[in-house]
């Protein structure tokens, strides 16, 4: 009881209109929906007799609602849309989590070294980040995807991670600059630890908490990114399904078969809405002063 009163008071201070109105119910609902989608993405395809690339010649471009055959209809080639969409959700979630991890590792390494080294090294390393920032991310990704074979998941991961780490590196560098003036770093230095040991043993563990939270906040961006590349035809390739290339096909077919667009698009909308709600709640919880 006391806890809930205090929580109300906190959101008064934070002044977040949404937080106060829904009083924390929305993030909880978002979490439940997300868990359901993740569960569906893992188990759903197993429940269906169809696989993501099996063609059903009896049911080409079948509208949804046929419970016996295809729950959410089929596409032009008679592939089951329910299975393909869930397959796409799974791929999107997998790629975005892995890409967040990659950008976390690279960003922490780059930012911590730059911040800890200081001086000219710091200046050049951060200048490099600035130059990459000044290019629109898509240019980098397009160049990266053409560098290697199109459609390989590894390249996609590198390309998406390659952009995500820039912001992480900036945040980490700032935190490192603050950390390295603290007494316990001074103490470690006085004990004769090498700079590399201080970095690994004392700086990085203290950075990881806030930066890991930031990395989870970037997951919806990574999902958008992956679907965007697949939408343009630079990411996941047919016959494999991603929410992006499903939406691309759906957009071309929407005149005659609107469900081909609506099914993957609504999954993406729900996924992004839940992730963003959750992210906002997480940010508010950690930093009540923001907004």
């Amino acid at each position, binding site marked *: 009881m006391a806890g809930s009163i205090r929580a109300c008071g906190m959101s008064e201070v934070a*002044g977040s*209109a*949404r937080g*106060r*109105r829904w009083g924390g119910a929305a993030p909880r609902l978002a979490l439940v929906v997300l868990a359901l989608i993740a569960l569906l993405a893992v188990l759903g395809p197993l429940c269906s007799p169809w696989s993501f690339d099996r063609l059903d010649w009896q049911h080409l471009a079948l509208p949804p609602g046929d419970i016996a055959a295809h729950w959410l209809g089929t596409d032009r080639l008679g592939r089951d849309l329910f299975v393909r969409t869930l397959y796409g959700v799974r791929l999107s979630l997998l790629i975005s989590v892995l890409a967040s991890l990659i950008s976390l590792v690279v960003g922490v390494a780059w930012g911590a070294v730059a911040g800890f080294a200081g001086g000219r090294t710091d200046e050049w390393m951060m200048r490099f980040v600035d*130059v990459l920032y*000044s*290019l*629109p*991310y*898509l*240019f980098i990704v*397009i*160049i990266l*995807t*053409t*560098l*290697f074979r*199109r459609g390989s998941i590894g390249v996609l991961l590198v390309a998406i991670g390659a952009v995500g780490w820039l912001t992480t590196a900036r945040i980490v560098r700032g935190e490192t600059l603050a950390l390295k003036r603290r007494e316990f770093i001074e103490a470690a230095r006085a004990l004769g630890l090498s700079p590399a040991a201080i970095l690994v043993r004392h700086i990085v563990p203290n950075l990881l908490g806030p930066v890991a939270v930031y990395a989870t906040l970037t997951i*919806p961006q990574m999902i*958008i990114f992956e*679907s*965007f590349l697949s*939408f*343009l*035809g*630079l990411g996941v390739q047919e016959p494999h399904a991603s929410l*992006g290339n499903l*939406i*691309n096909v*759906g*957009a071309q077919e*929407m*005149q005659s078969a*609107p469900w081909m*667009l*609506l099914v993957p*698009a609504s999954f*993406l*909308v729900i996924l*992004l*809405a839940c992730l*963003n*709600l959750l992210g*906002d709640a997480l940010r508010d919880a950690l930093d009540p002063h923001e*907004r």
Partner: protein
Amino acid sequence: MLRYALRRIGGLIPTLLVIITASFCIVRLAPGGPFDQEQTLTPAVRANLDHLYGLDQPLTVQYAHYLRGLLHGDFGPSLSQRDFTVTELIAQGLPVSISVGLLAILLALCIGIPAGMAGAIWRNHGPDHALTTFAALAVALPSFVTGPLLALVFGLGLHWLPVAGWEHGAPRYLVLPVLTLALPVAAYLARLTRASLLEVLRSPWIRSARARGLGGTRVLWRHALRPALLPAVSYLGPALAYVVTGSLVVETVFGLPGTGRYLVQGAIDRDYPLVMGMIVVYGALLLLFNLLADLLYGWLDPRVRHE
């Protein structure tokens, strides 16, 4: 102000040179070439093609040649669209892309800033709730989802607007692409304006203006608005970057004859001059727009230009 402007313009040229050099290196170092096709060419034909396009020269010579061409506005021949130079392709498509992009940013400014102001003034009342919820959704959704959905509702469902096409820029054909691009930018601008106006309204100088007996409207327009717009102005640069990438999607979805599709298609075809040309043109545009945003910022906030 003039010195500030000159200093900023002087800083652009090295940045542009870095962008050109970096993308030249990366594009050329990529494995595979423009003439790798299913049927392999005979070595003689291949050598002739490479010679024709200067691909057999050392990289430094190619680079110098490319830079010399750029100075004359010559981006070289397109390797995938034979009979066209890259300059011709860009000259055809760029007016379309630029007009759609600028209209989108204008629309976003016209919707986003008043909406954000309204949200701050009627904070935590009906319109504000509706606004924050709508803005959260509009920011979260990418244009490749909103574009087709808008086309589905307003084009196929309600028959109010054409689904796709250009028709020499007839206004009816512009509405949906511009709206698709403007929506997330407007939502973000509304959020920024709302948050910063709320903060400004709490500041000491607003309290002192009120204490001098000035009315609410006058305080808002004369004292609060100008500093409250600063975050929105500094967002203009990133907004353009967003519109540039969004234009790739919007041009695909709505079938506009802009330059966006050249970037993707050029990359898939390994059309070096086309990709390079697009990067240089878009890079220059972005730098220019960032500069304009900076100058506007300097004009609004005198503290910046005296630093």
